[in-house]
């Protein structure tokens, strides 16, 4: 085994006999571009709503629920797609989330939420993961669109003004603390703090 490794190391360590330096440099560069481009293209392909709802688990449950909410249908026609809220936009965070998502691939393969009943049963746990994630990053995915600086509270309802002044601008709470269940239905909330 060690001998084998040693042999390969010798091959890698010795200068090329048949290929020119220019070929190896440029070839390596081109191969790198192709690999990196391919990687990012594949990454972006998995970061689309079309990809998410290609599975019935998403299409029939959470996506169906999203459709009647303001994040899908509204007066100006601007809408949020799945990854806008559920995948971080920064590259490193995105990769971290995508690595976590390998667990979701596992779930897909073994049908963890294959039926409506299974999904409903697991729903609270899944929701709690998302709440915890948004709580930890100070509702970053909300703030990608809804920034506190650009929020004109004079154009909000009196109730919203009071709540935002008291909790949002002071940093006492973050978006997800109050705005749960705005894009999907809530799971059974018994036992969740601040809910009945």
């Amino acid at each position, binding site marked *: 085994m060690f001998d084998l490794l040693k042999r390969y190391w010798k091959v890698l360590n010795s200068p090329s006999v048949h290929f020119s330096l220019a070929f190896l440099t440029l070839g390596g560069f081109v191969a790198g571009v192709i690999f990196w481009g391919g990687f990012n293209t594949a990454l972006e392909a998995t970061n689309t709503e079309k990809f998410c709802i290609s599975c019935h688990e998403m299409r029939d449950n959470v996506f169906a629920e999203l459709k009647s909410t303001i994040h899908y249908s509204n007066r100006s026609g601007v809408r949020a797609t799945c990854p806008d809220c559920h995948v971080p936009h920064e590259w490193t965070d995105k990769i971290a989330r995508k690595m976590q998502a390998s667990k979701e691939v596992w779930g897909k393969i073994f049908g963890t939420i294959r039926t409506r009943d299974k999904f409903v049963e697991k729903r609270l746990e899944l929701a709690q993961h998302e709440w915890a994630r948004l709580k930890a990053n100070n509702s970053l995915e909300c703030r990608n669109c809804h920034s506190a600086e650009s929020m004109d509270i004079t154009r909000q309802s009196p109730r919203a003004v009071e709540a935002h002044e008291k909790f949002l601008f002071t940093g006492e709470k973050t978006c997800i603390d109050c705005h749960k269940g705005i894009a999907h239905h*809530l799971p059974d909330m018994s036992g969740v703090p601040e809910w009945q």
Partner: protein
Amino acid sequence: MKMTPKWLMALAIIAIAGAAYAAEPITTLRSTAPDQESPAPRISNFEDTDQKRPRNYPEQPPTIPHDIEGYQIDKNANKCLSCHARSRTGESGAPMVSITHFMDRDGQFLAAVSPRRYFCTQCHVSQRQVEPLVGNSFVDIDALLPNNSTRIAE
């Protein structure tokens, strides 16, 4: 059949009534014939002023002075109670659910809102600025009582 004055009179009354009836078009809530699709009325927004509205009579369930679009009230969750529940009013500043809502139907007080009072929008509704389709001649009791008392005094 003999045309007696009585018969002539009856015919005349029917004719006059029929003419009066035909002259005035029948008003219905429908703007087109029943077998045709009528244009849908415009949807207006919820009144969202956060201003308490006085009740029209003492037993009236107070109307909701804010937008409740998308509020989930089902066996899983009650969005209203996330502000109006007793334990939540400190933070939210919302009025607490009335104590009568803690009573079960035998008049026993429970620790939290009674299941029979759980579905808020069964009685409490938000309001929209719309023209009523049907008129209403409701008179407030305060407007009614002075009249009564003056009549009695007379």
